[in-house]
């Protein structure tokens, strides 16, 4: 019988390239037969073949017992096969490992050859159990007569210590002795091991310094010297005296490696700079590595080579480009940020099309053109998308580092962000969006400029049309809409944004190309913009303007109707909300006759009835009562729960048919109820804050809003039910409940909160908590928004970044800021799906003492205004 050897298998593989899978399947079948054979030779051959196939990706874990059999063969050539297979295929959870203890013990006391392979095998497969049981045997091997064995034992001891640290005291003294071994190979191996050990626990090994120092001054082995310098690099931060002592020998060795001690680094910068210009790419790379280490402590030294480093961002070698980027981020300061960012931008701009070049950009293009002319290939290589992504992300983190500490001119930075939006062509839209929103919330001085830029973006129809393309950064439009809408009541921003001109852009049919989150932001922004615009009109009312208003409202209604049948429920709902508001406005406008007023006014002789349609004042107060502000991360924690808050009683008892789910629901109950309590009170505040006429509207709105909802729900529910027809009743109920919840605007899903501001938790812009105008005052004044816009903006002033955010008044900061408060406020579940229909049940309970819980109320209220659109993004 002729069994296939490994060579035959490989030859067969090469001959059967077309049908490899079939050939291998056949071979594995043979191996399965052979491996069970009593003949050790045959078994070992099978194991060896299997090891080869393992390299090609075929499983051999099933054969581990046979591997152990082969390992235990007394014949050396078979034993090696077994050990090889073991090192290749055994992992920490291979169960046959415990069978090898005795086998290894035996091999460790056998001939030198056996000892060598068992030490080698042990170094790979050692487990905590093996390390414990064999520690004595391995340590004994450190004193073997053959240097080859001692060498292997030194490394095996290290592997053993990693798995079984309890053996350290015994092993370490023996290991230290090996530093004085006669054989240089043993000493080198010991240094290698020490290097690993010292890296983990430098303080433990400081006592070794004299011995190591002697080795460094006497040895001529380059390998060992490199490792020794690494070793001292780990040690010197813990023993300052070492640095002084090391200086002379290292100065001698300076060409060998890049070590870490401070002194050495200082000495070395000029040398490294020479490396940077070296034609050898490897030296260049090493120089970058070393400079990154130096940059944090010696920024000035590195800064001298800024130009050289910047030009390397366009190097044709990706490895070097990545290193250069690292270095750039390490060396950024307030002074050089702008020039660095402009350079990076110029690398991003495609040579053929730069659709939106700023003056600075074209300037920097001109500067770098001599470079790009000669190396067209270089520029092409910067456009590999994954690298672009890294480059842009790095750019964004450089700038936002430490809450925009290095950014001096935020106008400039916003323009950079906008430029990035256009030239990115990779998926970074969400990050740009987050930064935009963050900056606008934190830096008051830049709001106006932000509105101007964002208006420009919103008006760019080509950008909108291309939004479906990959890497179009359409998410930025969300930020644009939000910024324009949120700042629309600001008088100066309003001039720039010109709401009546922007509105058509926000509601044009092609908006439906965008994601539902962005459409929602668009709709909300449109309503806000109209509110601000109509408010302004009412102040400078001229009766001829009525025609303009009517036209705008008509178009708004016409456009909004399209969105009420959008496939996303969130969009539908917002559109329906807005539609009802505008329908009311239109009705009011239709009944407004300026001529009548003109004739009637003198008769009345007073200004009882305003000269403009009242509905112009309807929308603006809905959005502009409170100002947005960033809130300290600990703000929520510092608000203690009011004592009167009872989380255990039902507000609305659950309907009977959900009783089966109570267990599942109770979890959500607590939060849900708290939420309800808050809303209850909040509704009260809202009602007071509005004029009587608005109350009428909200009632109207509520009716019409629930109509489409209720007619919709059974429909979807039925479909859902059909889908799960054969599921159990319980599951059906749960699905139905989830479906209802999905449609419930007051239900925030319990999914993990993927905050848009993952980079910095404390940047989540939330509403200002204190200095709210007293509710009565709001009711008195007709233009609440004017109160807070009294201050004028002077953009030339230095920008102030609100770093910490605000804390509620009189709050005691909690001991630890560790738990992020976001979760507690946003993960709110609603107890019953009946919430909508039972809405009237939430009327104000006069029994609840309002004064006890002032802060939470405001938070919730504010959330509704500003953060509502934000929430949808998080969803």
């Amino acid at each position, binding site marked *: 019988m002729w069994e296939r050897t490994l060579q035959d298998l490989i030859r067969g593989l090469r001959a059967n390239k077309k049908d490899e899978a079939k050939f291998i399947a056949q071979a594995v079948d043979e191996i399965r037969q052979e491996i069970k054979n009593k003949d050790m030779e045959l078994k070992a051959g099978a194991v060896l073949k299997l090891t080869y196939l393992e390299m090609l990706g075929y499983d051999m874990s099933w054969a581990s017992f046979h591997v152990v059999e082969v390992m235990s063969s007394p014949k*050396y050539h078979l034993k090696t096969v077994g050990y090889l297979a073991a090192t290749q295929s055994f992992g920490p959870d291979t169960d046959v490992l415990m069978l090898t203890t005795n086998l290894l013990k035996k091999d460790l006391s056998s001939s030198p050859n056996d000892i060598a392979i068992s030490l080698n095998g042990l*170094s790979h497969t050692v487990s905590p159990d093996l390390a414990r049981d064999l520690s004595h045997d391995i340590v004994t091997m450190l004193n073997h007569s053959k240097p080859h064995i001692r060498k292997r034992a030194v490394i095996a001891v290290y592997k053993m210590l990693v798995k079984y640290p309890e053996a350290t005291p015994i092993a370490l003294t023996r290991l230290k002795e090996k530093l004085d071994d006669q054989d240089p190979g043993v000493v080198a191996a010991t240094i290698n091991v020490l290097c690993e050990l010292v890296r983990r626990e430098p303080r433990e090994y400081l006592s070794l310094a004299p011995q190591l120092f002697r080795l460094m001054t006497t040895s001529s082995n380059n390998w060992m010297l490199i490792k020794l310098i690494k070793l001292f690099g780990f040690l010197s931060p813990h023993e300052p005296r070492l640095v002084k002592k090391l200086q002379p020998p290292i100065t001698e060795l300076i060409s060998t490696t890049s070590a870490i001690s401070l002194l050495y680094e200082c000495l070395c910068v000029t040398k490294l700079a020479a490396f940077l210009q070296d034609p050898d790419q490897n030296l260049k790379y090493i120089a970058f590595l070393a400079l990154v280490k130096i940059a944090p402590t010696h920024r000035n030294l590195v800064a001298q080579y800024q130009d050289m480093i910047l030009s390397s961002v366009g190097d044709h070698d990706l490895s070097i480009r990545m290193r250069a980027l690292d270095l750039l981020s390490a060396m950024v300061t307030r002074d050089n940020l702008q020039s660095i960012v402009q350079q990076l931008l110029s690398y991003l701009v495609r040579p053929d099309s730069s659709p939106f070049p700023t003056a600075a950009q074209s300037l920097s293009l001109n500067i770098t053109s001599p470079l790009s002319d000669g190396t067209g290939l270089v520029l092409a290589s910067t456009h590999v998308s994954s690298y672009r992504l890294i480059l842009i992300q790095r750019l964004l983190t450089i700038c936002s580092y430490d809450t925009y500490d290095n950014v001096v001119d935020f106008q400039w930075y916003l323009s950079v962000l906008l430029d990035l939006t256009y030239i990115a062509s990779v998926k970074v839209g969400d990050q740009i969006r987050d930064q935009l929103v963050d900056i606008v919330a934190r830096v008051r001085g830049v709001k106006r400029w932000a509105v101007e830029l964002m208006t420009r973006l919103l008006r760019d129809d080509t950008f909108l049309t291309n939004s479906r393309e990959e890497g179009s950064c359409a998410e930025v439009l969300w930020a644009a809409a939000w910024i324009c809408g949120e700042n629309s009541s600001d008088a100066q921003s309003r001039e720039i944004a010109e709401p009546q001109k922007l509105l058509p852009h926000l509601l044009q049919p092609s908006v439906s190309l965008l994601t539902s989150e962005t459409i929602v932001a668009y709709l909300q922004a449109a309503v806000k913009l109209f509110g601000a615009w109509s408010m302004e009109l009412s102040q400078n009312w001229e009766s001829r303007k009525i025609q303009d208003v009517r036209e705008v409202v008509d178009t708004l209604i016409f456009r909004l109707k399209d969105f009420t049948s959008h496939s996303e429920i969130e969009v539908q709902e917002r559109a329906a909300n807005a539609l009802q508001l505008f329908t009311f406005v239109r009705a009011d406008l239709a009944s407004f006759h300026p001529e009548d007023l003109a004739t009637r006014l003198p008769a009345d002789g007073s200004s009882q009835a305003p000269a403009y349609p009242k509905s112009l004042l309807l929308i603006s107060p809905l959005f502009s009562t409170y100002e947005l502000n960033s809130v300290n991360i600990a703000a929520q924690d510092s608000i203690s729960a009011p004592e009167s808050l009872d989380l255990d009683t039902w507000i609305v008892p659950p309907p009977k048919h959900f009783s089966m789910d109570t267990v599942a629901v109770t979890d959500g109950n607590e939060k849900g109820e708290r939420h309800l309590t808050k809303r209850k009170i909040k509704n009260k505040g809202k009602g007071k804050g509005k004029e009587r006429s608005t109350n009428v509207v909200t009632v109207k709105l509520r009716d019409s809003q629930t109509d489409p909802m209720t007619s919709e729900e059974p429909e979807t529910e039925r479909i859902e039910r059909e889908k799960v027809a054969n599921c159990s009743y319980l599951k059906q109920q749960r699905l139905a409940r989830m479906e209802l919840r999905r449609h419930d605007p007051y239900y925030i899903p319990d999914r993990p909160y993927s905050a848009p501001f993952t980079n910095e938790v404390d940047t989540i812009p939330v509403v200002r908590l204190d200095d709210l105008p007293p509710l009565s005052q709001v009711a008195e004044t007709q233009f609440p928004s004017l109160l807070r816009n009294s201050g004028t903006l002077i953009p030339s002033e230095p920008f102030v970044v609100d770093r910490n955010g605000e804390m509620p008044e009189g709050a005691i900061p909690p001991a630890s800021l560790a738990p992020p408060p976001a979760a507690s406020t946003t993960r709110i579940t609603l107890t019953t799906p009946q919430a909508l229909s039972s809405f009237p049940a939430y009327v104000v309970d006069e029994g609840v003492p309002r004064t006890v819980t002032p802060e939470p109320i405001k938070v919730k209220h504010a959330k509704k205004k500003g953060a509502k659109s934000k929430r949808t993004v998080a969803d």
Partner: protein
Amino acid sequence: MIHSVIIFNTSGIPRLIKFYTPINQSAQAIVTKIYSLISIRSSGSCNFLEAPELDELLGPKYDIEKLRVVYRSYATLHFVFVVDSSESELGILDLIQVFVEALDRAFENVCELDLVFHFDEVHHILAEIIQGGLVLETNLDEIDSAVHQTASARKQSFAAANPLALGVGGVGPRSAGLQTPLGWLTGKLTGVGTR
């Protein structure tokens, strides 16, 4: 320490895969990825592989620190070492050179086919240079003598077990007796080439 040693050819077919630390994804996936990154690099590039994708690939596995990929290409083969920060980058480049020279001594003008047909021998040679991810020996003469010593031990053991095999074989390299045409022929005829 050294986390893995991989050899693959210019078409991405692995010739040797050695991981010194456990991995939680398929070794083949890592090889394929590294190959795809290396194969597009021009010859003038440096020997250190850096790519955004690489961090993802190696990231979840070794989250404590960043690993570096050092590689060197010889004719049709790429030698790739994945190492952490306790190894010197240039030192590893030299180590690859040592490894290749050791192979060259053992196989006499080593070529890809030697690695294909003697993959076990390559493993044995590597085991004389690196043990468990730590450098065992860097002196070529030491390595070479150790390699020869174990090879002859295997040969003897094989000969003792197979007295009819005409002294050919062991799981050894060509140097174990296949150089002479006669030896090659007997190997063919007996069909026990290297089992």
